[in-house]
């Protein structure tokens, strides 16, 4: 005896397991990137420029965020806009299952994939390159969950504002690169100072990056960073809920 919602979620996880490309980008690619960067000797040297940390230390939270970006911006909106375009949401609306169940299912499977990816990245960094584990576990958990919520909010907003799958890809690409930059994938945001850094700190991934770094170093994330993420989350979900169409 299962509820329709549980059945939909179970089916969505089974289907997600067949999406090899999505799984590669979300689960494997971040740790692959960390592994490759860790092979560069200079990346493993502690530097006074980064507060006594090495570049690879900084890339652990970066690759955590990278997996969130892949899930929320690259794969989830593509799936959901496709579902809408193909009438799957509408069809589900004619059954006792709520079409909302399929959205929930997609959010859950993507969140689970991100969580798996994060565990792999943190363990790999620790074992292979001696990167530090989060010292403030509570702080890290708070920062991580908020980052994931705001990230999925970006995906939800992309899904909502895109009239079809093709538009979703375009919007996704436009959003993708600034997110990669502010998350520090190209170079950790720590290398920037002054105004650039302040501006980056006002973006969802910039704030997330600050918060994860603080928690890793042992302090509770600064409230301003948590507030920035919370603020973005509210704005993004309001947009998503207001604009979203089932068909």
């Amino acid at each position, binding site marked *: 005896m*299962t509820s*329709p919602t*549980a*059945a*939909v979620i179970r*089916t969505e996880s*089974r*289907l997600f397991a*067949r*999406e090899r490309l999505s799984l590669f980008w979300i689960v494997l690619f971040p740790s692959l990137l960390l592994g490759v960067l860790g092979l560069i000797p200079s990346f493993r040297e502690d530097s006074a420029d980064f507060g006594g940390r090495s570049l690879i230390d900084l890339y652990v939270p970066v690759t955590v965020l990278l997996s969130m970006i892949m899930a929320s911006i690259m794969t989830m909106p593509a799936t959901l806009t*496709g*579902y809408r375009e*193909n*009438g*799957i949401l*509408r*069809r589900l*609306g*004619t*059954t*006792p*299952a709520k079409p909302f169940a399929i959205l929930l299912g997609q959010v859950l499977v993507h969140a689970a994939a991100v969580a798996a990816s994060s565990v792999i990245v943190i363990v790999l960094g620790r074992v292979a390159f001696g990167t530090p584990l989060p010292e403030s576990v509570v702080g890290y958990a708070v920062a991580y969950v908020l980052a994931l919520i705001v990230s999925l909010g970006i995906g939800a907003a992309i899904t909502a504002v895109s009239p079809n799958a093709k538009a979703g890809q375009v919007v996704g690409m436009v959003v993708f690169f600034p997110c990669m930059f502010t998350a520090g994938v190209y170079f950790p945001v720590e290398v920037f100072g002054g105004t650039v850094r302040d501006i980056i700190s006002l973006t969802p991934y910039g704030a997330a990056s600050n918060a994860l770094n603080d928690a890793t170093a042992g302090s509770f994330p600064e409230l301003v960073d948590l507030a920035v993420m919370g603020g973005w989350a509210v704005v993004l979900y309001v947009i998503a809920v207001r604009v979203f169409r089932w*068909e």
Partner: protein
Amino acid sequence: MHQEREPAVVVDGLRKTYGEKVAVDEISLNVCEGEIFGILGPNGAGKSTTVEAIAGLRVGDRGHIRVHGIDPWTDRAALTEVLGVQLQEAKLQQKITVQEALELWSAFYPDPEPWAPLAERLGLGAHLGQRFEDLSGGQQQRLSIALALIGRPRVVVLDELTTGLDPRARREVWDLVRDVRDRGVTVILVTHSMEEAQTLCDRIAIVDAGRIRALDTPAGLIAAGTAATTTTFDTSAAIDLVSLREIDGVTSAHSANGTITVEGAEGVALAVIEALRTQGVSPQRLRVAAGSLDSAYLDLTDTTQEITR
């Protein structure tokens, strides 16, 4: 068979506009329990909007609908227990297998129909492990029909049922629809196939430009049309078409590649033969056929005046 029937679906004064465009303009109809009710009309006539309103997917601007007493616009949850829907061109997840889809849909209902015999009945038994994206159009369509039936609905809406099916698959699906009806399920069939409507439906509503143009049994519609019979013959002689058109009851007479077609009311055939005899023409390959739904349909949906023929 034909005892007192309850209306399964009542549509009363339904009106739906999209911006300036009136999609459905005051449609009222009753669908009796246990009948196959056809909604026939050209593209954009308002057929799909009407059934989407019945399925609770659209809320009308005016009017009301009841499906076994349930208001689909306010009580979708109760509606889904009695109404199964196969939507036009609705797909499933690309990588879901036939069996997974059937199992998923089974989990939606308290007392689902066992899916294995249903799949067998629809010719899907050999494709249970196949993914939706790898099915042919016809197989996708049959899966969609199976899913509409799995919850043992009392009313089932089938929108563009056999579009994309080959002739054999079409006939199999038609048999299935009759089966479903014989089990007491009411069927609302949306189609633009005249043949499908004529062979399958107990009653047909012909819809055009958002209004019902006619509502009757297939035989009733044909008889009421201006072309109850069609008379065709070949001749090499010159024919005075004008004189044929002047015959009482003839609605049209035209010639193509040496074949003359005369359409008109019952009894026109005799008058045509009589006229040919006086003209000294002997018709070859003379055929007289009962009019089809085609001509009735064309009469009823032809809203633009045809000037030339």
